[in-house]
C-alpha cells in the first residue's frame, strides 16, 4: 500500500524532464553547486540517521502530524524515505527518479496530515543541524563552508518547491472531489406520480451545473416517460442571465420531447432579477410554490386528489 507506484498513481501531480530542468534554473543550481554538495557526502552519510531522527522528533515534540506517528508502518516508511532523501541529495543526481521520490514522500506526508507549515519548520531545523556540522568539520575555513551550505540550500529549496506544490495540488484535488460529490447529490430528479417528475434545485447554479442539470433532466424524461416536470428553484438564491437562458433552453428542449415544465418557487429577488435582465418568461408556466406546481401538474395530467376523511391518528 505504501509502495511508490500506488502513491504516485493516486495523484495527478507529475513533473516532466523539462519541468525539472526549469526548476533547477529557478533555484540557480549550477555545476559548481553540485560539486560543492558532493563534497558534503561524508557528513550526511555519517550523520544522516541522526538528522532523520531529529527531524521527526522535532515534529513529534511540536505535536504535529499525529496521524503519521500513530501509524507504525507509515512512520517507518516516512523515516526510510527521509533517510534516502538525505543520501540522494549528496549523490547529486537530480533527475526524474529524484523528483518522483520527492513527490512520493510529499504524498505520504499529505495522506497522514503533515501540514506545510510544520514540514517547513522541521526541515529548517534539520538544515540548521547540517549547517552546524558543515561549519564544525570544515578544514578550509568558514568561507568555503558557507558556500557549501548555500549550494545545499539551493537544492533544498528545489525540494521544498516540489513538496509544497504536491501538498497544494492534493488539497485542490480534495476540494474538487468534494465539489463533484456535492454536484452529484444536488440535482436529483424524482418521480412523484406516473408521468410526473420533480426536480428540486438547491444552491448556486453555474454554467457547468446547469449543463449537467439539463442532461439529467432530459434523460430522466425519456427514462420515466414523463409528461410533466415541476422544477422547484426555492433553494436558488441568485440567477444570472446566462443561467436563466440555459434554463429556458432546457424547458424548450423538454417541450420538444413532449414534456411540459412548470417552474415553482421563484423567490422575490430572482423574479426581480429576471425582469431586470429582460429574460422572456412569457412561454413558461410558473406557480408560486412547489405545492401549487404539483397541484397544477396533477390537474393537467388528469389526476384529482380528494381528502376522504380526517385521516388516521399519526401518533400513538
Amino acid at each position, binding site marked *: 500500500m505504501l509502495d511508490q507506484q500506488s502513491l504516485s498513481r493516486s495523484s495527478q501531480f507529475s513533473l516532466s524532464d523539462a519541468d525539472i530542468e526549469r526548476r533547477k534554473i529557478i533555484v540557480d543550481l549550477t555545476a559548481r553547486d553540485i560539486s560543492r554538495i558532493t563534497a558534503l557526502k561524508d557528513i550526511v552519510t555519517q550523520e544522516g540517521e541522526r538528522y532523520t531522527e531529529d527531524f521527526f522528533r522535532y515534529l513529534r515534540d511540536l505535536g504535529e502530524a499525529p496521524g503519521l506517528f500513530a501509524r507504525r508502518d507509515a512512520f517507518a516508511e516516512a523515516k526510510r524515505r527521509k533517510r534516502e532523501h538525505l543520501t540522494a541529495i549528496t549523490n547529486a543526481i537530480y533527475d526524474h527518479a529524484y523528483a518522483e521520490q520527492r513527490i512520493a514522500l510529499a504524498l505520504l506526508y499529505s495522506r497522514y496530515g503533515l501540514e506545510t507549515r510544520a514540514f517547513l519548520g522541521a526541515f529548517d531545523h534539520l538544515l540548521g543541524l547540517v549547517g552546524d556540522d558543515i561549519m564544525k568539520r570544515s578544514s578550509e575555513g568558514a568561507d568555503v563552508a558557507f558556500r557549501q551550505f548555500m549550494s545545499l540550500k539551493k537544492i533544498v529549496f528545489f525540494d521544498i518547491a516540489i513538496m509544497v506544490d504536491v501538498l497544494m495540488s492534493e488539497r485542490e484535488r480534495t476540494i474538487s472531489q468534494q465539489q463533484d460529490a456535492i454536484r452529484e447529490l444536488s440535482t436529483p430528479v424524482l418521480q412523484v406520480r406516473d408521468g410526473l417528475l420533480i426536480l428540486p434545485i438547491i444552491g448556486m447554479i453555474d454554467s457547468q451545473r446547469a449543463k449537467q442539470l439539463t442532461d439529467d433532466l*432530459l434523460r430522466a424524461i425519456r427514462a420515466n416517460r414523463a409528461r410533466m416536470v415541476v422544477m422547484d428553484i426555492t433553494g436558488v438564491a441568485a440567477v444570472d442571465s446566462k443561467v436563466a437562458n440555459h434554463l429556458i*433552453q432546457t424547458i424548450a428542449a423538454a417541450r420538444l420531447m413532449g*414534456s411540459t415544465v412548470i417552474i415553482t418557487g421563484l423567490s422575490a429577488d430572482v423574479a426581480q432579477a429576471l425582469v431586470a435582465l429582460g429574460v422572456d418568461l412569457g412561454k413558461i408556466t410558473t406557480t408560486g410554490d412547489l405545492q401549487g406546481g404539483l397541484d397544477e401538474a396533477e390537474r393537467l395530467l388528469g389526476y384529482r386528489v380528494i381528502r376522504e376523511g380526517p385521516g388516521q391518528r399519526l401518533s400513538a
Partner: protein
Amino acid sequence: MAIPILKQGDVLIASLQADPTDNDLILLKDELADRIGRLRSIGVVIDVSGLDVMDSFATRTLRGIAHTTRLRGADTVIVGIQPEVAFSMVQLGLTLDGIATALDLEEGRARLQRRADDEASRGT
C-alpha cells in the same frame, strides 16, 4: 429510400430512419398531404427517434407537414426527439412552436386520441 407511411386505424404513422435526404422529406410531405384526404385520417404521428441530428431543413419540413395537415383537418404529433437532439435544436434556435410533441409513438397516439375526444365532446 422513400419514408414508409403506415396506416393504423384513423391515424397515419411515418417513421424517419437514419439520415433521410431532403428529397425523401419532400416526398413524405406530398404523400401525407394526399393520403390524409383519401383515408380520412384524424391525425399523423411522425416518429423521429431514429434521427441523431435534426437540421433546419428537416425542422422546416416537419413544420410544413404540421401546417398542411391542420389545413386538411387533421393533427400532427412529432414523437421521439432524443435528449441530445432536443437540446441542440434549442441551441440552434430551431423550434416547433405550436406543434404537438410527445415522448414516443404510444404517447403521441394517446395525445391524438385525447384531442379527438375533446373535439367530439365539444361537438355534441
